[in-house]
């Protein structure tokens, strides 16, 4: 663990955790009710309806321009919806000024006030709300301790590393005891190693503050899968999938979700008939395969069979597994993983596995298999999950 992020939530004294937790008891959920946002007539957020339950982390992910940041900014009050309603708890905040919404916000580039020390940054929101000196004296060290920055209270932002600055930004957001915490790509500006550590720290922080409601915007699927209770996938201003992280990953409701959340093999198949227990038999090329039909796709329809690369294995299948004849196109070694690209009946199938002692050479003919329960059918047309 890098020195600058060593010892954070795990080292938080019980009294601090209890104090902070008390602070968050008033947490509320967030509601988007048919919210649209348009800039100069161009719709950037299109009829978003979504509920973030109190104490939950919901991650909005999607490519650039998908509308995820706009959704977060609408909650913060920095963009005004052209239609719809936004609620925090039971309060309609659609037309409430940002300073009156009681939200904490952490942004990608930290946005610490450069002329203020870390402790002054954390105290800023409290002073803005007219908190007394005794409250500030108590809460600023408490929040800095919560993020492991108690020893850096007197430092200016320029004297802190990226990870440390981000922690001060989190402490600043928590100090006002917000109803909800908005995180806008908070780890994007950090290098890979610090990002991984900060991700763990955020997960720990939420364990310390389980009733804190968090809306987390990111383009990084790993962050979303690690932290979020529920994930919303956005594309072109629309929410194209929403569900708990496991379900979305296992049973993506559409092609875009399957490809955006993790790597996916998508093979064009035709559903033949139900096979009981939520399974379906499908035709792929000249053969038949078995897959989960989680979305209840009708018999005879064309759809996609989704199987994750790490669920595909080399060699002869065991009982009940799907088997395919394949030709090796290329093999890539990536340290702790080996990626094999295969040709299966003219379609690309990717396989990832621990490094092999003797990987198959390009052009080699072999058999691959995957469990029927690890394969799921995905509709070809876009449907909201």
């Amino acid at each position, binding site marked *: 663990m890098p020195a600058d992020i060593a010892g954070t939530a795990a080292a938080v004294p019980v009294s601090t955790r209890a104090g902070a937790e008390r602070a968050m008891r008033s947490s509320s959920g967030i509601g988007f009710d048919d919210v649209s946002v348009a800039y100069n007539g161009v719709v950037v957020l299109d009829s978003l309806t979504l509920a973030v339950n109190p104490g939950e982390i919901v991650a909005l992910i999607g490519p650039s321009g998908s509308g995820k940041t706009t959704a977060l900014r609408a909650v913060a009050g920095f963009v005004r919806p052209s239609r719809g309603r936004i609620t925090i708890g039971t309060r309609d905040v659609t037309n409430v*000024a940002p300073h009156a919404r009681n939200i904490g916000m952490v*942004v990608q580039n930290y*946005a610490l006030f450069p002329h203020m020390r870390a402790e002054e940054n954390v105290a*800023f929101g409290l002073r*803005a*709300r007219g908190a007394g000196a005794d409250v500030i004296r108590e809460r600023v060290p408490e929040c800095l301790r919560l993020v492991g920055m108690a020893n850096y209270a007197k430092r200016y932002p320029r004297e802190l590393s990226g990870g440390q600055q981000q922690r001060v930004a989190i402490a*600043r957001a928590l100090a006002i005891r917000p109803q909800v915490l908005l995180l806008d790509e908070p780890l994007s500006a950090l290098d890979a190693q610090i990002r991984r550590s900060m991700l763990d720290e955020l997960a720990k922080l939420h364990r310390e503050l389980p009733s804190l409601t968090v809306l987390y915007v990111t383009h990084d699927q790993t962050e979303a899968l690690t932290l979020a209770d529920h994930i919303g996938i956005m594309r072109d201003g629309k929410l194209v999938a929403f569900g708990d992280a496991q379900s979305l990953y296992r049973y993506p409701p559409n092609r875009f979700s399957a490809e955006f959340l993790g790597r996916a093999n998508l093979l064009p198949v035709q559903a033949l008939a139900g096979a009981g227990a939520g399974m379906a038999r499908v035709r792929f090329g000249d053969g038949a395969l078995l897959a989960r039909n989680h979305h209840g796709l009708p018999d005879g329809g064309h759809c996609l069979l989704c199987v994750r690369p790490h669920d595909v294995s080399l060699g002869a299948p065991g009982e009940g597994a799907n088997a395919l004849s394949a030709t090796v196109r290329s093999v890539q070694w990536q340290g702790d993983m080996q990626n094999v690209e295969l040709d299966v009946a003219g379609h690309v199938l990717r396989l990832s596995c621990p490094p092999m002692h003797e990987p198959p050479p390009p052009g080699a003919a072999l058999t691959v298999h995957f469990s029927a329960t690890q394969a799921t059918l995905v509709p070809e047309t876009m449907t909201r999950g």
Partner: protein
Amino acid sequence: MAELALGAPYAAQPRTGSFWIAPPLLILAALFFFPLWLILRQALAGDGDVLSLAKFAGVMASGEFRHALVNTLVIALSATAGCLVLGFVLSVLIAFTPFPGSEVLARMIDTFIALPTFLVALAFTFIYGSAGMLNESLMAILHVDLPPVDFLYSQWGVILSEMTVYTPFVMRPLLAAFSLIEPAQIEVASSLGARPLRIVQRIILPAALPALVAGGSLCLLLTVNEFGIVLFIGAKDVITLPLLIYDKAIQQFDYTTACVIAVVNVALSIALYSLYRFVVAYFGGRRAGLV
């Protein structure tokens, strides 16, 4: 061999450098230092050959000089203070409350800087002068014979004109400094519960302070030396140092007194310019968007 090969270019470099420094130094000496020396010599020796501070003492003891010095400082300080307040407010409005045409307005500031200073004085004469639009309208409405608004031909007229001319000199560095403030800082401050006025006080003003101080120093430097506006308005009893120099040299042909006052004026300008450079260096001109 390697040392010799590396050493050769270094040996040749200073000779070339010295040669190319000479022409600009000569031009500078001819156009600036020599005339300055002539003024200083005239101030110290008058029409004779003996250098003495007697003339300086005489001029500085005169009420006329002291009156002009006080006028110069009062007008310069007042106009600078006005420029700072007006420039800050206008810059905040342009930078942080975008309205249709705000970008065009920001660009126009540069154009404003390029205009001659007397133009504003001329425009003010048309608007606020005794026979200007404002007074004519008021006289017609109020049925009075004398112009009710009579500030233009006073110190206030000069200060207002200088504020109008020099406010863009404050706004330009301020807008540059404002462009360096992360919008996210403003948004986060707002989300933390800060109202607009607090954001201006606690976030924007500290960030803009270097630009504000540097712009103010420049303004002070320029207003101390302002001549065109004061002359054009022709305010009664408003005699500043530059105007006094003009009066002594051109109207009274008293070149020695004019040179003494000019030396004082130059010293004042150099002191203010040093202050400006110090402020820019102290706050870091690059961070303040000044260089």
